[in-house]
């Protein structure tokens, strides 16, 4: 009955993309936010961004929605809208203060994630993007389990170039394989820094074991792209602005846009294949 409820609620969601990493602080939320902005640039598409990082929800701040509250209506919880075609949900909206710690064990976190999927009135959605916390635990198992009521197009896995990140990301790739979650590809963030003055490139996080490129080769997954470090990214996130809009000329913007396009193409390919089968 529960599965039927979830299926009904998620029936009008056409594409679902999970953003994962084994590692923390590599840019999952940043990527999720920019993917949402990028996809919503097409005003004919309805985009939903769901933040299931219960302990450290970054999405409200990154989307400029701090302080917003969730409203209830007859049809359920209403997402908070950044644009008419871009709605957001996060535990951040349920806290009375942004510094309140959510000190919950697994089962309680799972309960909220289920509520997010069952009780939020997303409406008709072309793209549902789910931002996750680092790791391979309750949140990840639950979201895959609950979303089996609809289908997940796949996961984008985010990393940085150093081996300490890659070793956690390999685990995440194996997690996806274990739960039969298709992998759209890997994004390598913080991949080099070009000095705006002397134009010299530095590897702030040197890829001592070949970076994401080598890892993707070894594990037979796609490398969607590499995004260089740009201090404007962090600033835009802190200020709740879209980096793509604030710094349209940055090499990082170009990288992000290419990656977003590849994700879009993957989803549309996927749909074409499914329609062929049906």
């Amino acid at each position: 009955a529960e599965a039927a409820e979830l299926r009904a609620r998620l029936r009008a969601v056409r594409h679902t993309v999970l953003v994962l990493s084994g590692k923390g602080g590599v840019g999952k939320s940043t990527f999720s936010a920019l993917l949402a902005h990028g996809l919503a640039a097409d005003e004919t598409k309805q985009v939903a961004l769901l933040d299931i990082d219960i302990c450290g929800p970054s999405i409200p701040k990154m989307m400029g929605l701090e302080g917003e509250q969730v409203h209830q209506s007859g049809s359920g919880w209403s997402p908070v809208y950044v644009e008419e075609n871009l709605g957001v949900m996060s535990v951040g909206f349920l806290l009375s203060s942004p510094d309140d710690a959510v000190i919950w064990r697994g089962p309680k976190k799972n309960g909220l994630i289920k509520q997010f999927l069952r009780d939020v009135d997303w409406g008709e959605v072309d793209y549902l993007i789910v931002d996750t916390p680092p790791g391979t635990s309750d949140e990840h198992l639950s979201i895959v389990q609950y979303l089996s009521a609809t289908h997940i197009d796949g996961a984008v896995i985010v990393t940085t170039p150093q081996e300490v990140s890659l070793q956690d990301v390999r685990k995440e790739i194996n997690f996806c394989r274990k739960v039969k979650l298709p992998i759209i590809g890997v994004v390598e963030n913080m991949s080099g820094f070009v000095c705006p003055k002397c134009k010299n490139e530095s590897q702030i996080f040197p890829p001592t074991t070949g970076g994401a490129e080598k890892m993707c080769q070894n594990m037979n997954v796609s490398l969607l792209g590499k995004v260089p470090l740009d201090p404007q990214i962090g600033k835009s996130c802190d200020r709740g602005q879209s980096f793509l809009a604030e710094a349209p000329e940055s090499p990082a913007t170009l990288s992000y846009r290419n990656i977003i396009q590849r994700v879009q193409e993957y989803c549309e390919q996927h749909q074409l294949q499914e329609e062929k089968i049906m």
Partner: protein
Amino acid sequence: LAERTNLAGVQHILLVLSGKGGVGKSTLSTELALALRNAGKRVGILDVDLCGPSIPRMLRVQDSAVHQCDSGWVPVFVGQDKAIALMSIGFLLERSDDAVVWRGPKKNALIKQFVTDVAWGDLDFLIVDTPPGTSDEHISTVEALRPHQLLGAILVTTPQ
């Protein structure tokens, strides 16, 4: 009756925390341990990041295994003089790429074991490295450490 627990010989227990991931908790835990060892202290590291254990690689012992003795698990000894005691779930994985896909209750059970069943011996400092967040691992670690001398927590962040 005072039972000599595995933590009875540990003088100071330090937790290294952050809400945020990727800010340098494991890096700091490692450097702090090495610096304290350099200053002549007896040091141990407990890595309770079950999903993403980073400490073994940072100390070049990612291929080590652990075994048991009468009083519990024997830590792996690392550092230049092999005098820093380290316990991490990293040592229990068959392959380093294996994901630990556990829900809370299973994580809690292992953390409790890590805290009470490692034969630390006599240490001046035990540094506990944690994963990001404020969830199962953190609650269980603090609960399991409560009867002991918890010195305090160091919080790590980055500027943004």
